[in-house]
């Protein structure tokens, strides 16, 4: 009478074992599938991160390229009419001024150059070095006002850095008359018809590495320029 019960119990046990095996196999399969899926998702995330990094680098580079190109173009345009150097050197300024003195027939030229001054205001913040300035006063005498204007133009173009003229005074001392010519011939020298003074801020950049030395020894700036410096850009 108990045979069927035994049979069913055996069936139940057998099926439980099979069910257990099935559950175990399915569990393992699910585990592996899930792991594989997670690994793949992780791989996707990593690769996406790599791409994002490359894209970010590309964007930075492109932006930088655009800025650099724009700055290079502006700089190239600037140096068409200006001295490309921004290293200030009092010695070389003397050479330039001597040349201009001769070129524009100045009867006299007196140069007063101040000590170096660092422009530390945040408006003048530079990255390639410290912005520096000399205050220069030129007192001159010459034959015509137009030569003074040309002198000013040459100063702005030939001097390194920026010549920011803030004072200009010109007065006419006389006219080019027969009396003037006679007097000049008698005195064996050119008598100036024009006198005046130019005050300007001479502004440039002291390269980062040379900051201290340049302040003490302006020749370092000159050396920098002679060895390529800004002329080479």
């Amino acid at each position: 009478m108990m045979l069927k019960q035994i049979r069913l119990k055996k069936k139940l046990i057998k099926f439980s074992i099979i069910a257990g095996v099935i559950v175990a196999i399915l569990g393992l399969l699910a585990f592996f599938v899930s792991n594989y899926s997670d690994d793949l998702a992780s791989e996707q995330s990593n690769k996406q991160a790599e791409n994002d990094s490359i894209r970010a680098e590309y964007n930075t580079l492109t932006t930088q390229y655009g800025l650099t190109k724009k700055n290079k173009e502006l700089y190239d345009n600037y140096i068409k009419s200006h001295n490309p150097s921004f290293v200030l050197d009092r010695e070389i300024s003397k050479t330039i001024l001597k040349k201009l003195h001769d070129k524009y027939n100045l009867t006299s030229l007196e140069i007063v150059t101040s000590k170096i001054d660092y422009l530390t205001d945040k408006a003048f913040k530079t990255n390639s070095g410290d912005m520096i300035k000399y205050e220069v006063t030129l007192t001159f005498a010459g034959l015509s006002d137009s030569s003074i204007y040309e002198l000013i133009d040459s100063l702005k173009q030939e001097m390194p850095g920026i010549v920011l003229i803030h004072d200009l005074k010109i007065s006419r001392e006389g006219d080019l008359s027969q009396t003037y010519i006679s007097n000049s011939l008698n005195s064996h020298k050119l008598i100036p018809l024009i006198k005046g003074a130019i005050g300007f801020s001479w502004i440039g950049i002291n390269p980062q590495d040379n900051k201290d030395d340049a302040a003490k020894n302006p020749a370092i700036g000159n050396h920098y320029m002679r060895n390529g410096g800004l002329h080479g850009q």
Partner: protein
Amino acid sequence: MALKLKNKSGGGKSSFILMIGDEGATLAQINKGGVIRRLFAQSPDPSHTGGFDEILSENPSAPITMLVDMMDQSYVVQTLPPVSSLNVKKIVTRRLQKDFPPDDIKGYIVLGREKTGRRDWNYMMVSLANHATLQKWLEFTVERENTFKGIGLIPLELQSFTTAIAKALNKNNFEWQILVSHNKVSGFRQVVLRDGKLIFTRMAQPFGDSQPDVIAGNIEQEMINTLEYLKRLGLQDIKSISATLIVAEEIKNFLDPKNIKVGDCNFSTPYEISNLLALNEAAQAKDHFGDIVISAFIAKQGKLVLPLHNAYTKKLADLLLFIKLEKLFVGLLILAFLVFVGMTGNDIITTQDKIDSILTEKTHISDDLNKAKAKSAELPKQVSLYEDINMMDGLFNRKQYDALEFINNFANTLENVALVKDFEWKINDPLKIDSKEDKRQIHIELNLHLTSPTEPKETYIAAASSLIDRINKKFVGFDVDKTELPGIVSENQEVKTTLDDSSTIKEEKLIDSVKVTILGPSDKKAGNKK
């Protein structure tokens, strides 16, 4: 000895109804709602159950339902106190153990609660004597491969059968319904329903001669006896009774409704009932007994009103339930796994596609990056220096603050009516400047010598005024100031007066120059433009 009533091979999902009584048992094989095989055995003795063995073994997956139509059945209606449904079941179980012999197969049916008063519970407790014949049939049935679905009691199951017939005959408006079925396994089974509920059942064995007229007489007498008994149960009007008698054609011919004396009387053969209830091939035209028709109807119902189990079959049912649940669990698990694998697989494919796409994209953007690097390498490295120089150029080389620009502009205004004797051009606070704002002010002082003739005076004044106008127009945004024009005598000027021979008064201004002062720009925005 087994009597094979019909033999057909069945396909598809079959089930068996084993109806047992004191006179033997019938086995009906039901397939797709139709009876495909039916067998009769006089007893559970192996010499009689060979046919049963054969078809049951042929269909081991077909479940067996046992219907019992034996004498020793008890039905007791009990009213129990209005306790909770959980507690009332405990009370009923206790009462079953107490009121009936321990070996009986017992069960109960909830009849509902009283609608008024204490709302007592009404239960029908049912007991089936577990005598030797029943035990043998159970042993024969249960120990097979076929699943045992439980024991059904014919009187209970006939409630729905009787109601279905009354409905089909359109007689269901009668308060009382009597069904008499002549069954091979048991005899004449009577059930009486009042308002669709089983109220009385009895069974009678045909006695004496088996001639149809004698049997018909027996039936009529049994009906009369039943009616007498029903009067004790509250029957007041026999017109409120509808009776259906399922008998063989031969017996039917001898039955007379006048002898039965009920409101409505219907005599049908098993074949007619089979057709009436659309029980496919449940009976043949010549069939004498209602067993197979009842079996087919109950099979069609799908489940028993009260499936009973003894302790052993209960254990088997529990084991089967466990196996079924386990299968269901594994099935659900497999389904869940398939869904999981499907979804994860889809994710994997999608992710793989994305990775491929990312890798393709990587190739492109790496190329772009390399090109950008190569392009950048062509550019000089001193970007910061260029930036600084461009910044300084923009900051300090502003046209409006250029002395030469001023001189050029001013020279254009003179138009040969004046000469500049001397001038002073000055920027106050030359470094008071930043990229957003330029606070510098230019201060210019010029000493002009007017060269146009002083006579006629009107022409001279006009030329001088025109010069000042031109200066004003040229230096919009600057404050232009001047001293008195030469040739115009005001109270503030020194004059020399000469009277000649003709007494003409000749006045001559001693100062022949004008001092112009230009200050600005007053419009700060103009000063910011390069």
